[in-house]
C-alpha cells in the first residue's frame, strides 16, 4: 500500500529451440517486464530475429487494418468476445471474401460521391443563367463575338449602344443589381470590359452545355436523386457487412496484433547462435508461478535464475531502476490513475496514492460543502456506474465523484448546515447573509451550523481551518519526505526535519494572527495554549516567542544543511501554507453564488402569486443551481488536485519511475479458448 509491488530481477537462459514456447508463456502470463538488450552491448551477443509467425501475421494484419478503416470500425467498444480458435479457423477465408466485397463497394461509394459533387457544382454554375432564358450552347463558341455574363450595379444598355450599335445586351433584375448578358464584337472586348467594370461588374463563368438552363438544372437534380439512391444502397450493404463481421474483425485484429508483438519479442533480447538470454523484472509474488510454468512448458531447456531483490543483498546493477507496479486497496485505485497523470513514483519512494485517497475527498467536500450538491455528486456518480459499463476511465471518475460527494454531504449537513444554498435554520441576527428562507419550513433537521459560510466570523473560521489543514497536510508531506530520504542521505533527512520546525513555527505565527476567531481561540486554549504565551510585539502584532524561535532554529539548520540560499524557500513555504486558504475561498464563493441564485429564484416560487411565476421560478432555480453544481464541482476538483500535486508533492515526491509494462496484452475483443 505504501510501497509499490516488490520486484525481483530474473534471468532466463536457454537454447534457441525453447525460445518460442518461452516467449509464448511469458506473453500468456503477463508477468515479465523486459529489460531490452541494446545492440552492441556485449561482445558475442546480438538481438534475435523474429519468430516465424511474424511475417505472415503482419501481412494479414495490414489487410485487416485497411478493412477496418474502410468500414469505419476503428474505435468501437468491445462487444461479445470471440474465441481465438474461431479466429484462427475462419480468418483466411473471411479476409479474402470481405476484402473483395468491401473494397469494391468502398470504391464505388467514393465514385458516386465524386459524381454527385460534380453535378452539384454544375447546378450552381448554371443557376444564374436561368433568368436569361437562352440555351447554353448559344453562349459560347463564337469567333467574332465575345460573350460576357455577370452582375452590374446599374444598367449599361445605353452606354453599350453608344459604344457599339451591333452589341446586344440582355438585362434582368437580380437581388442587389442587374444581371447582364452582353454579346459584343470581339474587337471591342477591352472597351466593353472597361464599361462593365465602371458599372461594378462581377463576372459569372459561362458553363458548357446544351439546352435551356432550366432543363439542364432539372436534369442534374434528377441525376443527383438517383445517385443518392445508389449511395444509400451501397451504404446499407456496407452496414450489413459491418454488423455481421464487426466483432469478428476487431477480435481478429487484436489477436493478430498480439501475435505480431509476440513474434517480434526476440528483437528485444540478447541471443547467440544457439542460445538466448532474457533479462527482466518479475513481481516477487509471481516468481514461483513463472518457474513452474517454465518447467511445464520447456522443462530443463531453460535455466531460470533469480537475482537478488533490490534492497536485500547484493544487486548486480544498482542504477537499474526496478519498474513500479502500484499496489493499493481497491477503493484507492482511481487515485492511481490520477497519480499516473502526474508522474509514476520511483521504486524506492513512498507511494502517495493512499494519502491522496484520504485527503482529496476531504478537501473536495470542504469546498463544495453542501448537502444538496453532495447528494447530486453521489447521484451522478451512481448514474455513470450504472449506465457506462465499458469505459474504465469514466467509471473511475464516477467512484471519485461518489467519494467526494459523500464528504460534501457530510460537511454540508454537519458543518455548514445547508442544502442547495438554503440553510437548515434561519440564522439569527443577520448571520449567513440574510436569506429569508430556510429548510425549517419543510423539515426541521436537528443540526445547527457551527460555521456559517457567509458570515464574517464564519469566513475567518474557515480561513483558520484552512491554515490548520495546511499544517497537517504539509507536515505529512515533510514526514514522508523524511522517510524517503532516511534511506539514502541522513543530511537531507535532517533538512526535512528542519523544515518541519520551520513549518510549525510559521503555523504558530499565523495562529497568533488568527487567534481572535472562534476556531483560533479554541486551538489556542485547547491545543497550543502553552506555546503561544510568551510573546513579543513585532509590527504591531504580538508574536509568540516559541514560534519565532522555531522559525529561527529551523532557518539556521536549513542554512547549514542545504546551503544559505535555501532560506529563501521559507517564504515559499509560507506561500504554500497561505495557498491552502483557497479551501475557504472556494467554499465561500460557491456558497455566495448559491445564495445569490436563491435570492433571485426563491421569491418567484414562494411569493410568486400565480402558477406562471412559480413555474418560471422553478425552471430558473434548476438551471442556476445546475450551473453552481457544475462550476463548483469542477473548481473544487481541480483545486483539490492542485493542492495535492503542487504543495503536497513538492515536499517529498520525486517521480520519474518506470511503470511496470509486462510482455503480453489484455484481450478486450478476443478470448483465449
Amino acid at each position, binding site marked *: 500500500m505504501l510501497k509499490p509491488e516488490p520486484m525481483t530481477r530474473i534471468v532466463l537462459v536457454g537454447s534457441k529451440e525453447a525460445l518460442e514456447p518461452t516467449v509464448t508463456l511469458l506473453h500468456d502470463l503477463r508477468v515479465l517486464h523486459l529489460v531490452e538488450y541494446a545492440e552492441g552491448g556485449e561482445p558475442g551477443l546480438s538481438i534475435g530475429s523474429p519468430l516465424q509467425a511474424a511475417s505472415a501475421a503482419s501481412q494479414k494484419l495490414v489487410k485487416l487494418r485497411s478493412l477496418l478503416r474502410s468500414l469505419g470500425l476503428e474505435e468501437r467498444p468491445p462487444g461479445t468476445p470471440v474465441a481465438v480458435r474461431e479466429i484462427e479457423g475462419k480468418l483466411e477465408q473471411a479476409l479474402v471474401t470481405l476484402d473483395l466485397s468491401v473494397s469494391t463497394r468502398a470504391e464505388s461509394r467514393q465514385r458516386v460521391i465524386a459524381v454527385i459533387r460534380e453535378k452539384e457544382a454544375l447546378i450552381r454554375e448554371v443557376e444564374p443563367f436561368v433568368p436569361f432564358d437562352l440555351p447554353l450552347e448559344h453562349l459560347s463558341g463564337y469567333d467574332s463575338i465575345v460573350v460576357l455574363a455577370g452582375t452590374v450595379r446599374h444598367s449599361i444598355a445605353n452606354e453599350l449602344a453608344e459604344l457599339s450599335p451591333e452589341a446586344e445586351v440582355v438585362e434582368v433584375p437580380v437581388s442587389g443589381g442587374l444581371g447582364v448578358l452582353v454579346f459584343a464584337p470581339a474587337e471591342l472586348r477591352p472597351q466593353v470590359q472597361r464599361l462593365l467594370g465602371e458599372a461594378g461588374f462581377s463576372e459569372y463563368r459561362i458553363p458548357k452545355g446544351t439546352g435551356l438552363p432550366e432543363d439542364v438544372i432539372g436534369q442534374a437534380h434528377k441525376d443527383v436523386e438517383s445517385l443518392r439512391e445508389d449511395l444509400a444502397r451501397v451504404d446499407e450493404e456496407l452496414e450489413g457487412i459491418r454488423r455481421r463481421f464487426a466483432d469478428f474483425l476487431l477480435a481478429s485484429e487484436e489477436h493478430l496484433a498480439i501475435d505480431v508483438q509476440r513474434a517480434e519479442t526476440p528483437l528485444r533480447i540478447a541471443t547467440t547462435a544457439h542460445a538466448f538470454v532474457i533479462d527482466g523484472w518479475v513481481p516477487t509474488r509471481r516468481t514461483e508461478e513463472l518457474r513452474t510454468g517454465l518447467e511445464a512448458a520447456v522443462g530443463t531447456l531453460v535455466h531460470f535464475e533469480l537475482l537478488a531483490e533490490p534492497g536485500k543483498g547484493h544487486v548486480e546493477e544498482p542504477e537499474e531502476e526496478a519498474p513500479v507496479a502500484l499496489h493499493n486497496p481497491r477503493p484507492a485505485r482511481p487515485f492511481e490513475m490520477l497519480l499516473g*497523470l*502526474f*508522474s509514476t513514483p520511483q521504486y524506492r519512494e513512498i507511494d502517495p496514492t493512499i494519502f491522496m485517497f484520504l485527503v482529496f475527498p476531504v478537501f473536495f467536500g470542504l469546498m463544495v460543502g453542501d448537502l444538496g450538491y453532495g447528494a447530486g455528486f453521489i447521484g451522478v456518480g451512481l448514474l455513470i456506474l450504472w449506465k457506462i459499463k465499458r469505459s474504465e476511465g469514466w467509471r473511475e471518475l464516477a467512484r471519485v465523484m461518489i467519494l467526494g460527494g459523500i464528504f460534501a454531504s457530510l460537511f454540508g449537513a454537519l458543518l455548514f448546515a445547508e442544502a442547495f444554498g438554503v440553510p437548515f435554520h434561519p440564522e439569527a441576527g443577520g448571520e449567513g447573509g440574510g436569506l429569508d428562507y430556510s429548510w425549517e419550513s419543510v423539515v426541521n433537521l436537528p443540526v445547527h451550523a457551527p460555521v456559517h459560510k457567509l458570515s464574517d466570523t464564519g469566513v475567518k473560521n474557515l480561513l483558520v481551518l484552512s491554515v490548520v489543514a495546511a499544517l497537517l497536510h504539509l507536515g505529512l508531506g515533510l514526514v514522508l519526505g523524511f522517510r524517503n530520504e532516511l534511506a539514502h542521505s541522513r543530511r537531507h533527512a535532517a533538512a526535512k526535519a528542519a523544515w518541519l520546525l520551520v513549518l510549525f513555527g510559521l503555523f504558530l505565527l499565523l495562529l497568533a494572527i488568527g487567534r481572535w476567531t472562534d476556531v483560533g481561540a479554541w486551538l489556542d486554549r485547547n491545543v497550543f495554549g502553552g506555546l503561544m504565551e510568551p510573546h513579543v510585539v513585532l*509590527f504591531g502584532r504580538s508574536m509568540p516567542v516559541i514560534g519565532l524561535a522555531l522559525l529561527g532554529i529551523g532557518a539556521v539548520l536549513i542554512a547549514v544543511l542545504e546551503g544559505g540560499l535555501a532560506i529563501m524557500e521559507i517564504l515559499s513555504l509560507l506561500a504554500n501554507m497561505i495557498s491552502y486558504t483557497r479551501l475557504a475561498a472556494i467554499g465561500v464563493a460557491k456558497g455566495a453564488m448559491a445564495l445569490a441564485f436563491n435570492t433571485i429564484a426563491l421569491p418567484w416560487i414562494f411569493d410568486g402569486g400565480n402558477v406562471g411565476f412559480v413555474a418560471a421560478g422553478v425552471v430558473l432555480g434548476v438551471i442556476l443551481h445546475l450551473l453552481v453544481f457544475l462550476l463548483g464541482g469542477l473548481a473544487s476538483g481541480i483545486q483539490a488536485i*492542485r493542492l495535492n*500535486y*503542487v504543495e503536497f*508533492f513538492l515536499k517529498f515526491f520525486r517521480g520519474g519511475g518506470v511503470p511496470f509494462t509486462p510482455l503480453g496484452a489484455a484481450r478486450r475483443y478476443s478470448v483465449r479458448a
Partner: protein
Amino acid sequence: MAIENVGAGLAAIGAGIAVGLAGLGAGLAEKDVGAAAVGAMAENEKLFGKGLVMMVIPETIILFGFVIAFMLFGAI
C-alpha cells in the same frame, strides 16, 4: 471594523493596491510559464508534473504583497 479617519482609509486602499498589483504581477508571470508548460506537455506528456510545479513558483510574489497588506491592516 469602522474606519474613523482618512489615514486609515488610505492605509486600506494601500493594502488593496498591494495585493491587487501583486496578484497582477504573479498572473503575468504564471501566464507565460503556463503557456510554455502546456506547449512542452503537448510534445511530451511526462512533463506535466514539472510543468505544473514550475507554473506555480511565482505565487511567492503574491505573498510579499499579502504581507505588506497585512502590516498595513495592522496599522488601521
